[in-house]
């Protein structure tokens, strides 16, 4: 049954009491816009991530390997689809408006997908480091998210991301156990992708972050980022790779890895669409979108008359 709240205090009391907001609830406009923007960015990132991987999929070395990689990227597009559907139900923008804003460079997506995968090693590094960063973020949202439709589809997304993590680690292990050329290719990929992946979590959360107050997110950026660092620094080292952080040190007192100061300049540039591959990636997507407009038009026109 759709609910309404008399004011923001009543709504926040509902949220604080563990309530789940549904699409047809009369939620405060500020909450609606915040949850919409968060889901739209997640959706855009899933799709742009798939397009980043797309460059290398036809070149995947191996027949069954290619099937597994296709299934993974298919999942990412599936996640984008699920997310665009629930975002559209919030009534802020239609699915078409969201896609057209994305392809016109008017929308945001994760920093990592503004970079180009220049070798196969990059493809593996993305599947391993970036997917793990995304998974850590998604798990934290799923745990306590106040928006019901988002929380429910995150269950499916997280399950599928689990398959991807195992695929990514399996491929990284083969490279780690592989030839010198493979290992050096992957080390170069780590050098390129380690920092962008770490920056995906964003700078430390501000003290009065409304996403946290409304339980759209439930953990602070710095906590999630640290979780990723503590997991991946020792794992990469155990496979014999070098973590490309010159100030990396083991803090014996805190018993944790410290990667040193983080330069947020690259993140800010990517979010303003000034990343190394932003222009090409967006232009490509826009071009593909316009070249298939006739099919969408044919499918939607018929339905109003028939």
């Amino acid at each position: 049954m759709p609910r309404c709240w008399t004011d923001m205090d009543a709504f926040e009391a509902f949220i604080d009491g563990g309530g789940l907001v549904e699409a047809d609830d009369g939620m405060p406009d500020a909450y609606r816009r915040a949850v919409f923007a968060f889901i739209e960015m997640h959706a855009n990132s899933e799709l742009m991530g798939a397009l980043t991987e797309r460059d290398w999929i036809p070149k995947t070395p191996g027949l069954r390997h290619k099937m597994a990689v296709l299934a993974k990227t298919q999942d990412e597009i599936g996640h984008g689809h699920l997310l665009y559907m629930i975002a559209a139900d919030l009534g802020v923008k239609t699915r078409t408006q969201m896609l057209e804003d994305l392809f016109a460079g008017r929308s945001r997506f994760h920093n990592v997908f503004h970079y180009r995968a220049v070798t196969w090693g990059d493809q593996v590094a993305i599947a391993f480091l970036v997917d793990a960063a995304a998974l850590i973020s998604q798990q934290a949202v799923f745990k306590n998210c106040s928006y019901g439709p988002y929380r429910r589809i995150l269950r499916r997304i997280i399950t599928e991301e689990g398959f991807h993590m195992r695929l990514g680690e399996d491929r990284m292990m083969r490279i780690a156990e592989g030839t010198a050329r493979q290992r050096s290719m992957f080390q170069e990929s780590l050098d390129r992708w380690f920092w962008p992946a770490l920056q995906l979590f964003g700078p430390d959360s501000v003290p009065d972050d409304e996403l946290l107050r409304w339980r759209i997110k439930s953990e602070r950026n710095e906590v999630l980022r640290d979780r990723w660092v503590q997991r991946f620094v020792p794992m990469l080292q155990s496979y014999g790779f070098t973590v490309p952080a010159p100030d990396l040190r083991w803090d014996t007192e805190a018993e944790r890895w410290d990667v040193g100061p983080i330069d947020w300049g690259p993140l800010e540039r990517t979010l303003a669409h000034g990343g190394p591959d932003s222009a090409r990636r967006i232009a490509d997507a826009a071009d593909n979108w316009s070249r298939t407009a006739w099919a969408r038009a044919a499918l939607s026109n018929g339905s109003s008359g028939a």
Partner: protein
Amino acid sequence: MSKQEAIREFLLAFADDEHLMGQQHTEWIGVAPFLEEDLAFSSIGQDELGHAAMLYELVLELDGIEPTDTAVDTLAFGRPSHDYRCCHLVEHETKDWAEALVRHWVYDAFEAMRWHLVAGSSMPKLAAIARKALREEVFHTRHADALLDRLLAAPEARSRLLAALDAVVPMVPGLCEGTAGEAVAVAEGAAAGPTAGLLEPLLVAIDQRFSAAGLDGRSAGSAGVGGPSAGGAANGQRGRTSRSPDFEPLMARMREVLDYDSEAVW
């Protein structure tokens, strides 16, 4: 040509067609006209690559080689171009989704007929693969038909699809071209009949599919299908032993990572 060689050629043509068709589908991931279609096209590509892997395994068994994934990949990616037996239709590169969709329909219509040819094969493993594949083919065909039902009824889409059909149809005789020694493979019971025997029913099916929508009298027949000119002699494939100009760039793309380090296992 020995019986075994004849069967091997037949299987290799089937496997190479499935492999390259699946490969062509991979080029559409992320750029289909809408997200739901992206998911569907990707599934079909995965199915075709899966069929190719199973057929390559049968070829390896005939060769007396243990059909590991590495052996499959060596066979799939590691032959000189004249040793491939694919048809030009699956080598054909396109960036036009109308062409990709028409080819998908035509190829899957043909593929279902081809699996039926081997569903009662004297090779039990081939018959088992056919049964699995035919369960999947039902959905490939339903998918293409559901789209075409709708798109052929819209004027602009219809003219794009007919133009695409004009590009695809000349490659159909090549799709149905058999391999050297196929009569021997058929006599051995590997298949119920020759691949060339599928040309006529396929042309009829194409004609029905693309004429049924009331195409301003411009049926597949007038596009050169169904007439004597559609015969296999002039398709330029020379018994599936010659490659089209699209093959080398495609294979280079497929081999790029493999060629980076020939010792590597990925």
